[in-house]
């Protein structure tokens, strides 16, 4: 039986937002337990003074004292979950600095999240799953080569991808729009199997990831059902041949975005978000349709344009579309609009998510949007770093799943 991992919860009072039960449910769903490092009330002030961040809220001060207790080995845990209220400045500063502090000093997996009263267990589940996997499955995640004949299915919010791999080579791929989760998975899988020229019965292990991973994994009796943060990290460094050392993985998805700091193929810290569809691949899809071009043409079109000629803030998909329509009505060229749309999405990911991570090269962009060259160029421009887009980057989740699933072959 797998041991229950201990997740230390550092929070400024999620119980006052009415979401403590949601956190508890998400933690129980991944067979973990929440623990609270005990600290003496007399020690709190000293801990805050020593740590050096002068925060006014006593609960934030308690978080700091608890974090110090973990780092100094006074309270053994396997992972740390840091939460503060959304829209609280001192909470955000404390959260971000504590994450960095624990990650650097205690070498523990840490995730942070800013909650509202609308936070649900479902929202937290992927993050908890990644936290538990990183803490528990280090051996599986250390796998650098795919062996045997395995398959991976990435049931994403917009598209479903499948990959067949044999002895460290991709021999079949399938890509379909996601409609009905199971039918789409079946179709993508069949397409990949046909291309590979193998029968389903020959597959030695199957891995699933993405939003539909649980349903697809259960129905198809997958050996590995894994959230996309871990799988994408592994798939990205594998495809980019950067398995050793640090890397940064950026995946701008159809529904949310992931930015992951990876060390030796294992996610260290990550942010997962997307305040609005305006900061996702969905906005670029809409832009392409409005410009009357196929999504595959949007990137090259953007490369010919100049985003500085117009302002587009796609913070909200509605306002983003409004500025897109306004720009066109004022005579802006398709190229400039495409460029501005790509830049706007890249800028939001940069502002909202990448600021929370330490960006270390190589930077690897993956997922379907990594094929939009204008978006990759915008990201390079903002980061001031070269962005690698490996071959098969759009199949990242499926490749990572097939690779990790091969751990179940022997």
């Amino acid at each position, binding site marked *: 039986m797998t041991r229950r991992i201990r997740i230390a919860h550092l929070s400024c009072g*999620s119980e*006052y937002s009415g979401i403590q039960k949601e956190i508890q449910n998400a933690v129980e769903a991944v067979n973990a337990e929440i623990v609270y490092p005990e600290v003496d009330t007399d020690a709190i002030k000293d801990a805050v003074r020593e740590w050096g961040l002068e925060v006014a*809220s006593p609960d934030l001060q308690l978080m700091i004292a608890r974090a110090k207790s973990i780092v100094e080995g006074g309270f053994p845990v396997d992972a740390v979950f840091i939460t503060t209220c959304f829209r609280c400045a001192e909470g955000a500063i404390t959260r971000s600095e504590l994450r960095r502090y624990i990650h650097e000093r205690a070498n523990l997996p840490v995730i942070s999240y800013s909650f509202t*009263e609308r936070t649900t267990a479902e929202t937290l589940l992927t993050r908890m799953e990644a936290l538990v996997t990183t803490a528990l499955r280090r051996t599986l995640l250390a796998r650098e080569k795919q062996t045997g004949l395995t398959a991976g299915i990435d049931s994403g919010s917009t598209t479903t991808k499948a990959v067949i791999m044999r002895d460290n080579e991709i021999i079949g791929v399938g890509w379909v729009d996601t409609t009905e989760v199971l039918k789409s998975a079946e179709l993508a899988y069949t397409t990949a199997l046909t291309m590979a020229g193998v029968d389903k019965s020959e597959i030695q292990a199957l891995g699933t990831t993405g939003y539909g991973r649980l349903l697809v994994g259960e129905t198809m009796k997958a050996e590995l059902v894994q959230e996309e943060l871990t799988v994408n990290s592994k798939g990205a460094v594998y495809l980019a041949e950067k398995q050793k050392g640090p890397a940064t993985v950026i995946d701008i998805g159809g529904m949310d975005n992931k930015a992951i700091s990876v060390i030796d193929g294992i996610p260290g810290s990550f942010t997962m978000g997307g305040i609005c569809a305006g900061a996702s691949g969905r906005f670029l899809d809409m832009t392409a349709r409005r410009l009357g071009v196929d999504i595959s043409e949007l990137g090259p079109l953007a490369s010919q344009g100049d985003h500085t000629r117009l302002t587009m803030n796609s913070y909200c998909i509605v306002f983003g579309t409004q500025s897109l329509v306004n720009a066109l009505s004022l005579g802006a060229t398709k190229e400039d609009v495409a460029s501005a749309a790509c830049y706007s999405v890249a800028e939001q990911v940069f502002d909202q998510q990448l600021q929370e991570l330490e960006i270390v090269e190589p930077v690897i962009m993956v997922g379907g949007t990594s094929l939009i060259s204008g978006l990759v160029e915008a990201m390079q421009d903002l980061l001031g770093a070269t962005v690698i887009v490996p071959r098969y980057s759009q199949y990242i989740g499926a490749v990572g799943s097939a690779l990790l699933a091969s751990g179940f072959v022997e």
Partner: protein
Amino acid sequence: MVKILVYPSNSLILSDLVTRFGHEPLTLMRVIRQKIKEVGIDSPPINVTPEDPKKGLKYAAVDVPSGVRGRMALLDPLIEEAEAAIIVHEADYSFGCMGCARTNELVKYIIRNKDIPRLELTYPTCDDEAREFVRKIRDFCESLTRKAEVLA
């Protein structure tokens, strides 16, 4: 007997002092006791549900953190009932603590704008200050008793 809101509102010492000097302390423990006894709600540890931060909209807009609004929802019945208030600044953790500096600011502001007798004190740091601290609370409570007797 006057209903006195104590702040920090989970301070057992303040609550005890107010009771000893003949008045009714309005404390958070009372609200939470009611909450956890409420049948049909299962939202541990204190049975605050996502509905509470929405009730807190009475005091703060939606762009104020949910933790502040959730705390305000708990304090609402106490603020509503309060006929007087005792606020202690810079209290020690063990004396009582609402956890959130923004909530502290908002509650104190609301109390100051309520037309009720109010005593504001700084948390004592030595024996002499502690004696003075208790004396001021006693004097304040006695002044409330006299006022109540006059009105009666």
